[in-house]
């Protein structure tokens, strides 16, 4: 089984910028100047923001040339969440080989999940959308550790075979003793992320066990089912997602329409 304690001892050091960004997110007075200063002085964050602002999924009508313009269009919380996700994902060694996923496929899948979140929730749920961006991206980090372990143990073929037919978190637990979302949550806790975010990630596969915020986490669970890493937007994945949305009394009709639109884009 995966030695979690050892993994936690050798985690990368998170950039100090992550703490600055988390603090900015909690401040009552929105300090956009401070945020822009952090982004402008980090070419990686600048690149991510401009890439997003000019992308087919999240882009605007006119090209965006500067991070200042992107920030004014996206707003503080959205920008902070995107920047934190970028910093965390760059801190770790990307590895989803055991899941049969390359970086480009991962980016395509996670961006479509991001798009699904944004289209499914309407304008009255802006705060919720922004709150769910970070767990949506950060839930994947546990998979990097699992993939690395599966590769080292030379169990890739068996793992991939089981993933095709069984529940993903079940298979992860069978192989390493913990699901990737649980592992992600433990890592985030070790890094000192807010408890609410840690809990959201922990219960993504099992929102029914939560006492509060069940629907919020169920939204992420539904999106995960539809954009399942090794079968994104496949008929079975969409059916599972719609079933999950129905179980948690989420807006199934709106979801069905949005999935149809994004599925077309995704498969192009």
């Amino acid at each position, binding site marked *: 089984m995966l030695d979690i304690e050892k993994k936690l001892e050798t*985690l990368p050091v*998170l*950039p100090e910028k992550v703490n600055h960004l988390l603090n900015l997110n*909690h401040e009552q*007075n929105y300090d956009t100047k401070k945020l822009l200063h952090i982004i402008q002085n980090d*070419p990686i964050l*600048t690149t991510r923001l401009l890439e997003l602002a000019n992308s087919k999924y999240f882009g605007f009508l006119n090209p965006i040339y500067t991070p200042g313009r992107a920030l004014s269009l996206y707003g503080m919380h959205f920008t902070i969440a995107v920047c934190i996700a970028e910093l965390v994902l760059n801190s*770790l*060694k990307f590895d989803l080989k055991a899941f049969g996923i390359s970086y480009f496929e991962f980016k395509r899948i996670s961006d479509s999940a991001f798009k699904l979140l944004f289209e499914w929730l309407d304008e009255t749920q802006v705060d919720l959308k922004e709150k769910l961006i970070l767990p949506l991206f950060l839930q994947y980090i546990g998979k990097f550790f699992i993939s690395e372990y599966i590769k080292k143990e030379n169990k890739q073929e068996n793992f991939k075979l089981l993933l095709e037919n069984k529940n993903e978190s079940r298979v992860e637990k069978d192989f390493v003793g913990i699901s990737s979302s649980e592992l992600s949550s433990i890592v985030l806790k070790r890094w000192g992320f807010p408890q609410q975010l840690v809990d959201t990630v922990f219960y993504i596969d099992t929102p029914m066990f939560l006492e509060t915020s069940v629907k919020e986490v169920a939204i992420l669970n539904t999106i995960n089912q539809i954009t399942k890493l090794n079968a994104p937007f496949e008929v079975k994945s969409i059916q599972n997602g719609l079933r999950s949305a129905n179980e948690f009394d989420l807006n199934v009709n709106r979801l069905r329409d949005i999935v149809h639109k994004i599925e077309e884009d995704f498969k192009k």
Partner: protein
Amino acid sequence: MENMQHITKLKEIAKDYTILFVEDNHELRKQIDKFLKKLFKEVYTASDGVEGVLEYKKNKPDLILTDLTMPNLSGHDMIRQIKKINPDVEIVILSAHSDSDTLMKSFHIGVSDFIAKPVNATKMIATFLKVLSNLKRREFQFLELAGQDPFEKEIVSESSDEKDDSEILNFIFENSMKIDVINHYKGVPIINSGKIIKIDGDDITLRTTHFQLLAIKEEKQAILDSSLINEDIRCSIVSMNIDEYEVVLRKQELFHPEFKDRNEIVIQPDSKTKAYVFNSDKERFEVKLEAISTKEVFINAVAEKFTYEKHDLIDILIVLSRDEKNTPIDYMRLSSRVYKIKQNDNKSVSVELLIKEKDEVESSLERYIYKRESELIKEFKEKFQYS
């Protein structure tokens, strides 16, 4: 080495005093407790306001460092209760809430100073130095008034030994403080935090991010920077354990950092970007564009064509892109002054030009640099991160 002198001075003063640290976040409490123990005679800790009051009553520390938002009893309420016991006790608050209402309320109830979260060692050292110096001065005045010689008790050393960077690095290491690790890819700075996990002579073992390790591996070196050190430390790479996010670096030299601001980013253009120097309104000759920032242009020119001298004014045309008929569609004409000329050999010269009349071209330059910076980051990611 101003910061090192501050640390030394603080160590000398603080070793006579005791402190109570009240913070509900376990990790932060542990981390700062470790830091305080290096400085103070005795450190007492408490995890909330109620425990804070009890610890104060029990140990009567000279100074209190406290968070504000805590369970059971808030920082403000705790301060009020302690001030009733001893109105003169020095209290420093540590909080993420730096809004004016919170600060006013804090100073109103007798708080001496404020340290904003996230905790920065430099700020913490400066604040303690200020507060403890006040405390020391008050004690002096008290002893003088009491007719005693205050210098009998004074044990502050006047020696200002030159402390080298090793001592500061050890201080950073012992206090688990983060340090900036800086690399460049074709001029684009890549900066992430690192933590020193071992120091062995000139060899420093660091843990940092995966992205930074890739940049160190590519550049075969790294620059270490901390707010505690005036100079940066250039290091060469000794070995790397990418699975455990570790790198062993060897100190090579200390130098004054060239830039830390985005205006100073000097990036390499792509091979399609062309540059021309105007001899007159109609005549121009091509030069090689080596690098560009919002302030400067670096070119390489054929020696016999470049007949200018230092301080001469010249116009330079930078063609950023052309259409299929090779007509420039995106270009900038920059007015500049020759700043440095370096003869490479008989055939070529390297020239640094300072851009004049920046306002007119600033937004074009800024846009170009953002665009090029993004291209280079994507190139780096594709070459090293995704492969």
